[in-house]
């Protein structure tokens, strides 16, 4: 029943390094991610967390390292895969939720089309089935069925973000990358999205890697945290342990800098 009792990691990252000339993007990052786990990557702007995420997701090519994913055919190093195989992975087992919904949606295509397009990319052809599945997913992200033929630009920011999530999850990915998914949203909209994400993670057994600078978001969403500074992972552990009893000086500074409301 429980995805978290699985003993093999879904993703195993070894010594991942990315440099921009003499500058370090991220250096020597290693971790395992297990099925059903949510890993938060935190750090301030320029800490390398977004570089790491885009290297993991295949949007950038790291200089060295391994990103081993548990595919249906067994563990494969994603960095050694042929481009078509990696693209297929990106449409099936993997998903990527961008901070700005415009980067993850097609703004000129209807809401239903945005969700259906990803289904068609994995071979769905029957119009009725696609539309039915799209409607189901819009419902799951709390978008009313009568908005299916509207375009995303007629949606609020929160709705666009929920649509992006539906578009990403409709093909049943096992691993979801998220880059500041609640970043551009009002706090009340943020809360609703957090609740939605928690439910989806629990009900679908998703594994998630979420990059954010918002420690309140990771406290509620992530099981584990990785803290980055200047491209290096300075601390990692259980989320509430890292936040309540930080061991590294930088994490202590980060946690003690949160404004209380």
């Amino acid at each position, binding site marked *: 029943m429980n995805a978290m009792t699985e003993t093999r990691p879904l993703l195993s990252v070894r010594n991942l390094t990315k440099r921009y000339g003499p500058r370090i993007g991220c250096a020597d990052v290693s971790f395992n991610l297990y099925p059903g786990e949510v890993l938060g990557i935190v750090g301030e702007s320029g800490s390398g967390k977004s570089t790491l995420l885009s290297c993991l997701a295949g949007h950038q090519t790291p200089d060295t390292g391994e990103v081993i994913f548990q595919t249906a055919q067994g563990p494969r190093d994603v960095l050694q895969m042929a481009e078509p195989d990696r693209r297929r992975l990106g449409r099936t087992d993997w998903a990527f939720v961008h901070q700005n919904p415009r980067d993850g949606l097609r703004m000129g295509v209807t809401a239903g089309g945005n969700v259906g397009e990803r289904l068609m990319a994995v071979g769905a052809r029957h119009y009725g089935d696609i539309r039915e599945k799209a409607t189901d997913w819009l419902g799951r992200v709390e978008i009313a069925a009568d908005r299916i033929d509207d375009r995303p630009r007629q949606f609020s920011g929160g709705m666009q973000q929920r649509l992006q999530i539906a578009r990403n999850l409709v093909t049943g990915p096992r691993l979801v990358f998220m880059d500041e998914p609640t970043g551009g949203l009002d706090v009340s909209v943020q809360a609703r999205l957090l609740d939605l994400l928690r439910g989806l993670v629990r009900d679908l057994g998703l594994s998630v890697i979420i990059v954010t600078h918002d420690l309140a978001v990771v406290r509620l969403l992530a099981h584990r945290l990785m803290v980055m500074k200047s491209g290096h992972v300075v601390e990692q552990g259980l989320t509430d342990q890292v936040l309540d*009893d930080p061991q590294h*000086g930088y994490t202590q500074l980060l946690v003690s800098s949160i404004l209380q409301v």
Partner: protein
Amino acid sequence: MIAISDLSKTFTLHNQGGAVIPVMQGAALTVSTGECVGLVGASGSGKSTLMRMIWGNYLAASGQILVAGVDVARAEPREIIALRRSTLGYVSQFLRVVPRVPTVDVVAEPLLNLGVPAEQARDRAMALLARLNIPERLWSLSPTTFSGGEQQRVNIARGFIHPWPVMLLDEPTASLDAANREVVLTLIEEAKAGGAAILGIFHDEGARDRVCDRLVDVTGFRPAVAA
């Protein structure tokens, strides 16, 4: 079910000159199935620190914290997460929830995490909320706007919705009126009768005398001051 030995804890304040503050040394205690042990000691003597180390959000410097066979002092995050999901419950003094989530769903969540069907989980949540005298009109609202006593009772409902074999209770009867205090003490007695091993902090002496089988004074776990 809980077996702690030779446990120590230090805090290192990197941004305050790297000051190292030892706060606990040589802590040891056990809690058996069906037993309730109360932690006593003056404010600041380390009761809550010890509870947090067992919960896993404070790191041990050395020693062993066995909870149902898992050494929390050394376990991987995912082992602690699995332990908290099914075995180790914690009623803290603070309710930390996603804003805008209805109270009934906040209470039902631990059961959903265990794979209990939503309908059944909500029924259990509603039964507990009723028992703890939270008015039904509040169940669909977020507890973030509730009074301190109401939040405390929501926290208790969430903490007792699953029969955790091991429970940590941090001042479960604080800020409760007599009737609700009685409900909580009965819940604790039922959990004990069901075989739970309970470690608690009770400033309420009457409550402590009623539910605790033994007391452990944490003052004995304070590190000796260097001469």
